[in-house]
């Protein structure tokens, strides 16, 4: 029997998701043996035209990482959708927008101004800017255009499964590949990581405040962090309660709070709203103004509560509508 064909592709991403695949280390050789990787730009040569020539649906699964920022990325995502039985959104950027989607809090104009005009190192007396079509020495050179907004993958194509994480862990990747190879798949739309909060598997959970209240939100720069005690109990924001389990508590093991890269759980798809509610419940004071109180106590609410989920959040959503007008 022919081996199932697998494609790995990246859009607006940092390459960390591809590195995570490389990190399957020894296992990777087994994976390579069990499937036929037809597309993986970081590590293997391939021909793009060959993909175009393939029959629709002939790729068993495409793993697509990165957010969607350019028309080209959208085009490839659409092509892979056509050619693939399954599409898995791989990692936070693809699932929720990820860090690149923080750009949805600013504008393309401001990004250009900062990069090419206002940077203290830039020497640009003629006010040159990269252009979609530039004429240099009589040669015409083209660049692709950016969307004004950073999209998540399911904004542009239908997605079957989601692998969360910035990046997903090698274990989760291996589990997903095995499930696909064995045909033991959960219902469509599932997020391929345990549907419970990070706190449920955190070693510090015992010291997590439930009835207890904290008086003030602190920043990690201000205090010596206790390496045993729940971050929330120390007054430091930890996104654990609003974040899906599956990373093996990586940041907590490094004695730093969770910043939420695994995204939300099924029961509360708005990660920020969930975290605000959690904080509202444990912060001292009357309950009436709980939300205001939380927002006031935090220096960067948007970047804290939606650090990886801006393309999925109401905040990011508002921006999309404005920009698309």
């Amino acid at each position, binding site marked *: 029997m022919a081996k199932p064909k697998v494609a790995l592709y990246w859009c607006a991403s940092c*390459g960390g998701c591809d590195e995570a695949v*490389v990190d399957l280390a020894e296992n990777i050789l087994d994976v390579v043996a069990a499937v036929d990787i037809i597309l993986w730009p970081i590590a293997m040569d391939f021909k793009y035209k060959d993909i175009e020539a393939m029959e629709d649906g002939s790729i068993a699964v495409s793993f697509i990482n990165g957010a969607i920022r350019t028309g080209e990325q959208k085009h490839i995502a659409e092509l892979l959708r056509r050619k693939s039985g399954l599409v898995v959104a791989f990692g936070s950027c693809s699932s929720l927008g990820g860090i690149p989607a923080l750009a949805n809090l600013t504008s393309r104009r401001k990004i250009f101004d900062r990069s090419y005009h206002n940077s203290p190192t830039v020497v640009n007396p003629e006010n040159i800017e990269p252009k979609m079509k530039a004429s240099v020495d*009589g040669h015409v050179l083209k660049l692709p255009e950016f969307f004004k907004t950073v999209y998540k993958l399911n904004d542009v194509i239908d997605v079957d499964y989601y692998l969360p994480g910035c990046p997903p862990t090698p274990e989760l990747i291996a589990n997903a590949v095995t499930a696909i190879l064995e045909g033991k798949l959960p219902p469509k739309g599932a997020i391929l990581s345990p549907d419970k909060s990070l706190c449920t598997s955190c070693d510090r959970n015992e010291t997590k405040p439930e009835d207890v209240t904290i008086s003030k939100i602190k920043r990690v720069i201000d205090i010596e962090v206790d390496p045993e005690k729940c971050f929330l109990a120390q007054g430091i924001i930890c996104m654990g309660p609003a974040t899906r389990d599956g990373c093996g508590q990586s940041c907590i093991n490094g004695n730093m709070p969770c910043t939420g890269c695994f995204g939300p759980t099924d029961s509360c798809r708005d990660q920020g709203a969930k975290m605000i509610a959690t904080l509202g419940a444990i912060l001292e004071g009357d309950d009436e103004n709980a939300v205001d109180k939380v927002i006031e106590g935090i220096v960067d609410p948007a970047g804290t509560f939606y650090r990886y989920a801006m393309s999925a959040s109401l905040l990011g959503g508002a921006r999309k509508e404005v920009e698309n007008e």
Partner: protein
Amino acid sequence: MTKKISIDPITRLEGHGKIEIFLDDSGNVKNAYLQVPELRGFEQFCIDRPVEELPRITPRICGVCPMAHHMASTKTVDAVYHVKPTPTAVKLRNLVYDAYIMEDHLLHFFFLGGPDFVVTPSAPPEERNILGVISKVGLETGKKVIETRKKIREIVIHLSGRIIHPVSGLPGGVSKGLIEEKRIEFLKYAEDALAFAKETLQIFNDIVLKNDKYLDLIVGDIYKHKTYYMGLVDEKNKVNFYDGKIRVVDPNGKELVKFEAKDYLEHIAEHVEPWSYMKFPFLKAIGWNGFIDGKDSGVYRVAPLARLNASDGMATAIAQAEYEKMYDALGGKPAHNTLAFHWARLIEVMYAAEHMFELLKDKGITSDDIRNIPTEVPDEGIGVVEAARGTLFHHYKTDENGIITAVNLIVATVGNAAAMSMSIAKAAQYLIKDGEVNDGLLNMVEMAFRAYDPCLACATHSLPGQMPLEVNIHNSKNEVVKTIRR
């Protein structure tokens, strides 16, 4: 009328880097452009974030070298708060940093760029990957590469929480210390890493240096550029990845300037072109004179060979011996041979391994004095490290609450942006004559390109590793007459 050849990743449809080559009337190369077609805007969207979060946000500039951004960012936050890390914290930062440099360089040599060499430059593309390398060096060595990388990455995971996008850097120190039990365990890893570094140099020696054809390629004129070189050095002018002063030498190897990170604005500027989202840094003292090499051009190079050229040697014994051996073979210092970047990279692997071993032998590294809590009002700071791919600058301004108001980044890969364009143009000039395009073009251009280990993820503040390439040859009416693709 000019003809245009474009070497494009997967047919312009993808978005991470492309090369355009233009021919003159007689069909010879006139110009070549390396275009980076993506920009993500970190400098802008980091504004309004709390400064201490930047060491956890900026690593997403590049998932191939997240530690470099994490560390540059952490050092910048130190500077913003005017706080010095404790001596133990400095040791721990050095340890994870060496581990990063070593595993990253090994990744490049065995998985990404090295296959060109190890497998042979003329091998078909489908063999030029890790599997091809394993069949050449043997399964045993192949397994050792994987095993060694895994172990040194474990050191990083233990201390920094995660290998891809580490989290441990805080102003004045680190979040987590090292216990004695772990020190002993990691010392053993470092010992194995050291042994493997020796083996890797041996492999390079046996496969590459003993083969005259490869050696000719390395020292040949085709991959040569006489430029300025930049790198961080310690007080003895030895290569340092984590800290020191930035030293620049001219194409004859003479020191042009040595400066502190905080003075970078006096020495480096960036040039903008309308055809690339990537900016082109140059030396202010010399000025931007276009994409040319030589003493009168402000173009400088960074990354392994540049660091070795800009230094007076390596701080550890075996690496120093290898350093001398390399310059003997290449006919003295500085070496201008782009392909020697691969060699220099392995000498750095050796240094990183030796330095890791030294750090872990020192029991002092297990002290729990890992952090100084900042007490001063934050304002502005500049932090520099040597990333695997070259000198990396972070520069932040904040308000009195430590909220970011401005960010400027000069990432490692862009340091070589102009030189990469030049190297590609030169390879093209050799291989395209009178409109005849030699079939080896793609291969040679790629080799020139990959020697720099360009991480365009970094450059667009976007894409790592190996780029799929396509060559389209256009006639004077801009019609595609021939396509070579891999």
